[in-house]
């Protein structure tokens, strides 16, 4: 029992509710939400260190022992993601302070961000698959509100589609849960894993697993990403960055958990399907990124390419590849948040979204331009920035397994990513500036600070990969050997 585990979900909820009562005190809302997020980052770091000492932690709610009760489980993988999510959210909040506008702040923007982070953290930490559904829904409900908040015409239209797609996906989640419960009579993840390994993964269970695969593919944007470009381009920039950093990653987390812990036995079927889907996702994402004329399209298709690339790591499935996937997941959360913040700032500064109509930004805003350059290199996977380690390890894993097609697609996509972002860089940052230095809009201080903080994180993950490798290796070891997880839950 360790009650610290529940804090990453319960603190944001309580703070969010308190903020509802402080509706008119904007400044107080900002301070409280920032302090909360900083505190959360601190707690997740403490927990991460604790796991290195004591092994996997668990908390049985109200003392019901597994497999009967609901429980939270913390291993290095989930805590790494909780920590990254908390840090990214903190920085996105700093960006939001100076850009989101009074109207959003009055309409409970901060409470909903905190609810979102509560749902995200809950999904990462839960050890019960029905509880995963509940946490997913908490996160999704908050995201529905954040997409629609502001009530612009186009926002309402796109959010309606976003909500409906997710409602249908959640419905399929429930169907899959019903079949799972019908066949295995348990919902505790460790217990499921144990029963699957006892009775073997028969075709019925594989079908259930594939149903889950469809559900999480919808949520993660793996192949079934048709809803993503529309709904990610309508909300305000800070929200976009949060979505790009967090929402699809929760789906990816669920997929990795599902196919390493619960259904790892029938890899010829499930992992082949994941591999094919990941490959197709990358190809489709590259086509979208190449054909896009406006910055939003290019950025959202880059999210899709990232999803495909991480899941190559899962499809290959060796320890090296999984380690790479975890590295890349962390990198992608930070880099995609920064990419969306930068792109939002470009649009704020120029009022244009089409790449060709923006020109010469670097002359007026040199720091801004070079940070864009850094994130571009990081996303392409150039050393010593954050994307490099993940890409190399996933590639190494693919070579070990002989999956040369996936390897080729994955590394081909790096070039496309570089090209698509370089196009923005060359057209919009270089060239003749249309606005003179005196007439330029200043970049808000908070925004600059958030760019710098995220850029530092990118460089740190790249240069300091050795420092975080302790945690990542432990996470990958637990994922590859599900028995560690199962024993910690059912025999502890």
């Amino acid at each position, binding site marked *: 029992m360790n*009650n610290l585990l529940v804090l990453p979900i*319960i603190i944001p*909820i*309580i703070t969010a509710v308190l903020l509802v*009562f402080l509706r008119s005190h904007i400044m107080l809302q900002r301070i409280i939400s920032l302090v909360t997020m900083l505190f959360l980052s601190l707690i997740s770091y403490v927990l991460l260190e604790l796991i290195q000492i004591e092994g996997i932690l668990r908390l*049985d*709610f*109200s*003392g019901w022992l597994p497999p009967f009760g609901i429980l939270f489980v913390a291993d290095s993988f989930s805590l790494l993601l909780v920590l990254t999510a908390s840090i990214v959210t903190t920085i996105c909040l700093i960006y939001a302070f100076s850009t989101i506008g009074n109207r959003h702040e009055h309409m409970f923007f901060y409470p909903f961000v905190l609810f979102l982070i509560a749902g995200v953290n809950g999904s990462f930490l839960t050890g019960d698959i029905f509880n995963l559904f509940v946490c997913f829904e908490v996160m999704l409900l908050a995201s529905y509100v954040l997409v629609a908040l502001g009530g612009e015409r186009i926002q309402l239209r796109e959010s309606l589609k976003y909500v409906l797609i997710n409602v249908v996906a959640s419905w399929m989640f429930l169907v899959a849960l019903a079949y799972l419960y019908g066949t295995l009579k348990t919902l505790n993840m460790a217990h499921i894993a144990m029963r699957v390994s006892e009775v073997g993964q028969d075709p019925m269970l594989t079908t259930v697993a594939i149903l889950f695969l469809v559900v999480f593919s919808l949520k993660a944007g793996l192949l079934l990403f048709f809803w993503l470009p529309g709904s990610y381009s309508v909300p305000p920039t800070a929200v976009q960055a949060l979505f790009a950093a967090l929402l699809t990653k929760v789906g990816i987390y669920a997929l990795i958990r599902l196919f390493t812990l619960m259904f790892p036995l029938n890899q010829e079927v499930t992992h082949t399907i994941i591999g094919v889907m990941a490959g197709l996702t990358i190809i489709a994402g590259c086509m979208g990124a190449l054909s896009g004329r406006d910055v939003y399209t290019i950025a959202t298709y880059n999210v899709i390419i990232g999803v495909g690339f991480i899941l190559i790591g899962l499809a290959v499935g060796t320890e090296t590849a999984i380690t790479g996937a975890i590295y890349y997941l962390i990198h992608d959360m930070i880099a995609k948040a920064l990419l969306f913040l930068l792109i939002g700032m470009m649009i704020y500064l120029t009022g244009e979204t089409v790449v060709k109509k923006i020109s010469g930004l670097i002359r007026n805003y040199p720091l801004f331009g070079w940070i864009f350059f850094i994130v571009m290199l990081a996303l392409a996977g150039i050393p010593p920035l954050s994307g490099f380690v993940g890409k190399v390890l996933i590639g190494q894993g693919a070579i070990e397994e002989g999956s040369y097609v996936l390897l080729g697609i994955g590394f081909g996509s790096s070039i496309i990513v570089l090209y698509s972002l370089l196009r923005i860089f060359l057209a919009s940052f270089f060239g003749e500036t249309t606005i003179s230095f005196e007439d330029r809009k200043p970049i808000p201080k908070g925004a600059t600070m958030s760019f710098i903080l995220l850029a530092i994180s990118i460089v740190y993950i790249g240069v300091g990969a050795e420092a975080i490798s302790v945690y990542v290796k432990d996470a990958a070891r637990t994922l590859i050997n599900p028995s560690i997880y199962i024993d910690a839950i059912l025999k502890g």
Partner: protein
Amino acid sequence: MKINDVILRTVVKGVVFIILTLGVYLFFSGHNAPGGGFIGGLVLGSGIVLLYITYDLETVHKKMPFDFKKVAAFGVLLATGSAIGSLYFDAPFLSQTDAYFNIPILGEKHLTTVTIFEAGVALTVIGTLVTIILSISEDE
């Protein structure tokens, strides 16, 4: 055109008390039998919505000057508060406790901390339900 809704008004005057009583009954019966905070809250909330439908917003609001968003928020606070209270006693999160008390007149009664949690759930449901209905009906 103003609709003549005298029948509705007369019926609601009586019925709303029955609905609210049923809501409270369901809430407390959830202790040992089917019922509980969610259902009780739904019934109570629908009673309040019925009042809003029958009388206009201003009249009801004069008698019940609550911001229902805050009611919902208070409910969540109550529920999470009762859950997090167990942290203080170093028990697992969400732990509940119960005891028998001798209350004058009522006799020996079984009291639990679950009731606080359920009250939170009920308030949340009432708050959300009424907020949703009001947010649709306010702009005409």
